[in-house]
């Protein structure tokens, strides 16, 4: 009997934890900003290098090819400037008979930039070639034109055989079929649809992004900034790991520095989204927060980190 009584007393079980009867009323908010994009003008030039057996069809072949390119690029909309086309085989008898006039291209693109001062002009060179044979002089000249005709490296599209587009390291290529191919405009148009207009990040910074929604500002007494991305501008937001008393007249904000993407093909441009998380307290902010039953209690206002995020 003596042994039974202590055992029975010890049998009192069912864990008892001390809890906060008036816990801090907390909420979590994520302030997000997504960068915007602006369209850049399409400034382009056609460079033809055709071999046509019947010389009488040379001009026609060149014109109809350039017309197809023009029609396709027009579908991109927006501001467009077509720089004077260059023909590297004027009578269609010998490929590369006339060298590419890089200076002329540079002048043309420069003039376009002057005409469109508030934009970023990245030149687009559309090279048309109907011979499945390696080029000799043209690659160096085209590369020079891409590299030097604008502050931004020019884009190169080819309408050619694959061997030529590969040799020129073209950004995009459309297969050559035959002069006067009625599908050429549509096939180029598919590339246009995917890549144009070129896009740039709309601004260098996000501006002040509110960390709390309007309705939250009305009820929040104190808040903490829990996490910000690396793109957050220093000193543009309340310090991390500190409890701040909300000043309703000056709600907290954050500014993000936006990585700049300039005149990028549409397919490779992506908008950036930045998020900062905030924990707000609407009542009992100096009371204890207990993460889980049995865990140590901490006064929320004294905690160096956010409470809800680590649960």
């Amino acid at each position, binding site marked *: 009997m003596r042994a039974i*009584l202590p055992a029975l007393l010890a049998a009192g079980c*069912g864990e*008892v934890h001390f809890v906060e009867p008036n816990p801090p009323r907390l909420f979590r908010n994520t302030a997000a900003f997504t960068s915007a994009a602006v369209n850049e003008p399409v400034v382009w030039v056609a460079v033809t290098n055709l071999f046509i057996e019947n010389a009488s069809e040379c001009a026609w072949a060149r014109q109809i090819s350039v017309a197809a390119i023009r029609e396709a690029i027009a579908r991109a909309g927006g501001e467009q400037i077509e720089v004077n086309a260059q023909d590297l085989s004027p009578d269609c008898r010998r490929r590369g008979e006339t060298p590419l006039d890089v200076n002329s291209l540079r002048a043309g693109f420069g003039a376009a930039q002057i005409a469109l001062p508030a934009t970023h002009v990245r030149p687009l060179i559309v090279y048309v070639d109907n011979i499945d044979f390696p080029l000799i002089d043209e690659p160096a000249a085209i590369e020079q034109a891409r590299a030097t005709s604008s502050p931004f490296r020019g884009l190169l599209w080819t309408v050619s055989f694959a061997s030529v587009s590969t040799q020129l390291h073209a950004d995009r290529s459309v297969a050559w079929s035959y002069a006067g191919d009625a599908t050429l405009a549509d096939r180029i148009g598919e590339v246009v649809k995917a890549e144009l207009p070129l896009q740039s990040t709309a601004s260098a910074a996000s501006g002040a992004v509110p960390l709390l929604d309007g309705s939250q500002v009305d009820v929040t007494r104190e808040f903490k900034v829990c996490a910000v991305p690396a793109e957050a501008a220093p000193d543009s937001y309340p310090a991390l790991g500190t409890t701040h008393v909300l000043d309703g007249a000056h709600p907290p904000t954050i500014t993000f520095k936006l990585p700049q993407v300039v005149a990028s093909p549409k397919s490779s441009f992506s908008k950036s989204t930045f998020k900062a998380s905030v924990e707000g307290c609407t009542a009992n902010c100096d009371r204890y927060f207990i993460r889980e039953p049995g865990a140590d209690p901490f006064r929320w206002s004294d905690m160096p980190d956010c409470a809800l995020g680590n649960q």
Partner: protein
Amino acid sequence: MKALVAAALIAPSALAQVRVEPRVFVKAHRVFVSGGVTWLERGDYYNSPGAAFSAAYYLGEDDAVELRSAIFASWLGASGEQVVRRTGLVPDAQKPVSLLTAGWRHSLAYGKVALASSILHFELQGGLDLGTLVTDRALTPAACGFFGVMARLSDRVYGQLDLGILTSIEQRSTSVVTAGFLPLLTLGARL
């Protein structure tokens, strides 16, 4: 050989002295009611003394059905009170308010003992009750298993000491099964 003969002569007389008395503490088909004190101890930071009442109807000498109730005057103990005073934190255990159960009681053994100049007739009993432990927040399902002593004090008066284990399911920070020690000391009468 002499010892064997002596034993044979003595044994019948010794056996002749064994007598079985009729049961004095008779319970069959009678109602017993009692009241007394109790204390629920379940390690919940509450001191829970209380008053207990029970009524049992004996179907025979060995088995009875019973109703039992208790009312607790619970208050937070000194250690819990100190935590509350210093931090404002409170235990998540619910404060016992009352207990209401019904169950079965069984006599395990009957005996008597000489106390001073009197003879005390008693029974060792055990049983199981099911019911509810009412707390300050909810009605919680409860079960109580017990062993005890029921002693005849006079022709109509009896005393009873039960030592029980009370279990219940309670919603604290999480839902838990609680167990506590529940001694009951009551004094009653046969109706």
